C-alpha cells in the first residue's frame, strides 16, 4: 500500500513540483528572475488569466468544455467600461454599480451559452465556440471597434496600489480564488459538478437535475470570466473588443497543466492556480532568460507537454483522445 500512496501523492503534487522546478530553473539561468518584484509581475499577468481559467475549470470538471471565454470577456469588459463612464467614471460615484453589472452580464452570457448547449442538445464544444463568435461580434457591435479608456485612479488602483509588494488585483484574484474554492468544496453546486463529471447518467438517475447543474455551471463560469474581464481592464486601463483575445487556449492549457483532467471529474481550482502560474512563469521566464522570440512558441509547447506528462496518473488512464 505504501508505494501506492506515494504514487498517488506524487501525481497529486506533480503540478506544484513542476512549478517549483521551473522557477528554480529560470532562477538558475537568470538570478534576477527570482525576485519579489518579478513575482509581482507574474502575479499581474496571471490574475486575469486565473479568473478565466477558474471559470472554465468548473466546466471541465463537468466533463464539458467552454470556448466562449474570449467573447464573454470582451462583452463584459466593454459593457463595464460603458456603464462605468456613463454612471460617472469614478468608483466614488454611482459608477461602482458597473462592477456588479459586469458580473451580471457575464452570468447572462453564460446562461445563454448553457441554454443553447442544453436545450438545443448541442455539444458544449460547438455551442460555446459559436457563442464565442457571437460574444466577440456583440462586443464589436457595442464599440464599433473603438477602445474605451478607464482612467479612474480609484479603479486603476487595482494595478497601481501595492500591499506587501503585490498590487491589489493580485489580492482580488486571490479572494475570488477562495470564493471558487468555497463553491467547489462547500456548496451543493460545486459538488454536483464533480457528480456530473464522474458519471452524468448516474447522476441523472439519482435524481440530480443535470441540465440545471450544467446551465448553472456555465453561468458561474460567465461570472468568473467577467471578473477576469474587470482585472484585464484594470491592468491596462482599456476595454475593447480585443480584451478577450488569446484567453481561450491559454486558459484551457493552464487548467490541464494544473492537473484537471479534460474528461472530467478530477481536479479543482487550486490545480488551476498552479497551472496558470506554470504557464505564466514559462512566459515570463522565457523573456527574462532572453530566449529569441521565434523559439518561444516551440519552447512553450515542449514545456507544456512535459508538465502534462509529469502530472498525468498514467496508470489510472486507459486511453486518451
Amino acid at each position, binding site marked *: 500500500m505504501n508505494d501506492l500512496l506515494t504514487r498517488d501523492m506524487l501525481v497529486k503534487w506533480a503540478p506544484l513540483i513542476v512549478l517549483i522546478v521551473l522557477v528554480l530553473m529560470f532562477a538558475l539561468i537568470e538570478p534576477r528572475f527570482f525576485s519579489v*518584484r518579478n513575482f509581482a509581475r507574474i502575479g499581474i499577468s496571471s490574475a486575469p488569466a486565473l479568473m478565466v481559467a477558474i471559470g472554465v475549470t468548473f466546466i471541465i470538471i463537468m466533463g464539458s468544455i467552454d470556448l466562449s471565454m474570449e467573447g464573454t470577456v470582451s462583452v463584459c469588459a466593454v459593457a463595464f467600461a460603458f456603464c462605468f463612464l456613463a454612471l460617472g467614471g469614478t468608483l466614488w460615484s454611482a459608477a461602482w454599480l458597473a462592477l456588479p453589472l459586469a458580473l451580471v452580464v457575464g452570468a447572462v452570457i453564460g446562461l445563454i451559452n448553457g441554454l443553447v448547449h442544453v436545450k438545443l442538445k448541442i455539444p458544449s464544444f460547438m455551442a460555446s465556440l459559436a457563442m464565442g463568435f457571437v460574444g466577440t461580434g456583440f462586443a464589436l457591435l457595442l464599440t464599433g471597434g473603438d477602445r474605451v479608456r478607464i482612467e479612474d485612479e480609484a479603479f486603476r488602483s487595482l494595478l497601481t496600489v501595492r500591499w506587501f509588494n503585490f498590487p491589489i488585483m493580485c489580492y482580488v484574484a486571490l479572494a475570488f480564488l477562495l470564493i471558487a474554492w468555497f463553491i467547489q468544496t462547500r456548496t451543493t453546486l460545486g459538488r454536483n459538478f464533480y457528480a456530473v463529471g464522474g458519471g452524468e447518467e448516474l447522476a441523472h438517475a439519482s435524481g440530480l437535475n443535470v441540465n440545471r447543474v450544467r446551465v448553472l455551471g456555465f453561468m458561474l463560469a460567465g461570472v468568473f470570466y467577467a471578473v477576469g474581464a474587470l482585472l484585464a481592464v484594470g491592468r491596462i486601463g482599456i476595454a475593447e473588443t480585443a480584451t478577450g483575445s488569446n484567453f481561450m487556449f491559454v486558459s484551457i492549457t493552464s487548467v490541464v497543466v494544473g492537473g484537471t483532467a479534460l474528461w472530467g471529474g478530477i481536479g479543482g481550482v487550486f490545480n488551476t492556480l498552479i497551472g496558470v502560474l506554470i504557464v505564466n512563469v514559462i*512566459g515570463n521566464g522565457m523573456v527574462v532568460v532572453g530566449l529569441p522570440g521565434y523559439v518561444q512558441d516551440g519552447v512553450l509547447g515542449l514545456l507544456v507537454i512535459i508538465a502534462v506528462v509529469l502530472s498525468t496518473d498514467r496508470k489510472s488512464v486507459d486511453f486518451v483522445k
Partner: protein
Amino acid sequence: MSFIKKFIEQETINRRNLLLGAAYGVGGLVAAKTLGAGSAQAALTDPAVAWSYRNRTNPYWNEIVSGGEAFVESLGKSKDFLTHLINEGSSEKSLSDVKSLLAKTNGNLALAIDTNDAPNARPVVESVAEAGAYVSTLWNKTDDLHPWDFGDNYVSHMSWSDEGPAEKTARILLDAMGGKGGVVHLGGIASNNPAIERLNGLKNALKDYPDVELLDAQPADWDTQKANQVMSSFLTRYGDEITGVHCANDTIAYGVLEALRAEGIEDMPIVSYDGNPQAVDLVGQGKILATVFTNPHWGGGITAALAYHAAIGSFKPSEEPNEHREFYGPTVFITPDDAAEFKKSFIENVPTYDWTDFWGPSNGQIMYK
C-alpha cells in the same frame, strides 16, 4: 518648425500646385470628365466601392474605414454604399471574400484593400483584373508585384516606408535618454513588414549613439496585453538598465505604459508609431515622446478614391507615371510641442480632403532594396 506645420504647409502647397496645373496630369483628366468627353476606356458606370481590411477591433483600421466612408459620402452617397470585407486576419477569407464580391457585382467594382499578408496581394490583384474590376492596394504586397504589369485594373499601391520615420523617432528617444543607457524594442508580428522596418529604423539610429545599448527586441504582435507582459519581463531581466523604450506602434505603447505604471515608473522615455488619437493625447501629456501619424483617414479615403476614379474613367492609370502608381503615404511626426495643434487640426476636426487630389500628400515613389 514643428512637423505639423510643415505638413499642413506642404499639403496646401500641393493643392495650390494642383489647381495651377489643372490643364496637366490629373487635373487634365478631371477636366476631360467634366467636358463629358466619353472616355474610350471600358470604364465602369456606378461601380460598387469596397474596402477590405483586417478587423474592426483596431483603431487604425477604423480610421482607414472612416476615410473610405468620407470618400463615398463625397460622391453624394450614404455611408452604407461602402461594402466592408473583413478578413479577421485570414488571408484565405480575404481572397475568397473578394472573389465573392466580384461575382456578386459582376466585376463592376472599385476595391481598396489591404491583403493582410504580402503574398496574398498577387491572387487578389489577378482575380480583380480578370473580372475587369479596379483595385488599389495599401500596405501589403510582395516586391515583385507592380501595378503597371496589369494595365489599368491594378490602379495603385500605397505604402509607408517606416524605416526613416522610425529612425527619426528613435533619435528623439535616444536624445531624451541623453545618448546613453539601454533601450528595448517591442515589435509587431515578427514577419510583418512594418514591424521589420520599424526595428531597422531603431538600429540605424543606434549607429550614431555608441553609448546606447539595444538590450532586447521581442515581438509583441501589435497587442496591448502581450506588450504589457513582455515589458514586465524586460523589467525583470534588465531592471534599471532600461532607460528608454521603442515601441513598434501605439497599441504596444499602451501596454508598455501600464507595465511601467504598475512599477511606479512614470518618467521612462517612450516613442511609438501610428498617431492614434489616444496616443496623441499621451504625447500631449508627455508620456510618449513622439509618434508618427500616417493619416490613415486620408489613406483609406484616397485608396478607395483611386480605385473608384480609375474605374469610372476619371483618369487612365496606365498613362500615369510609375510614381503615381506606387507611392509612399504621408508621415507626420507628433511631439509634445505640436500634439495640441495636431489634435485640433486632425482629430477634433477631421479635415475635409479633396478626394481627387490623389498624390498631393504622398511621399514619393516606392523604392525597393
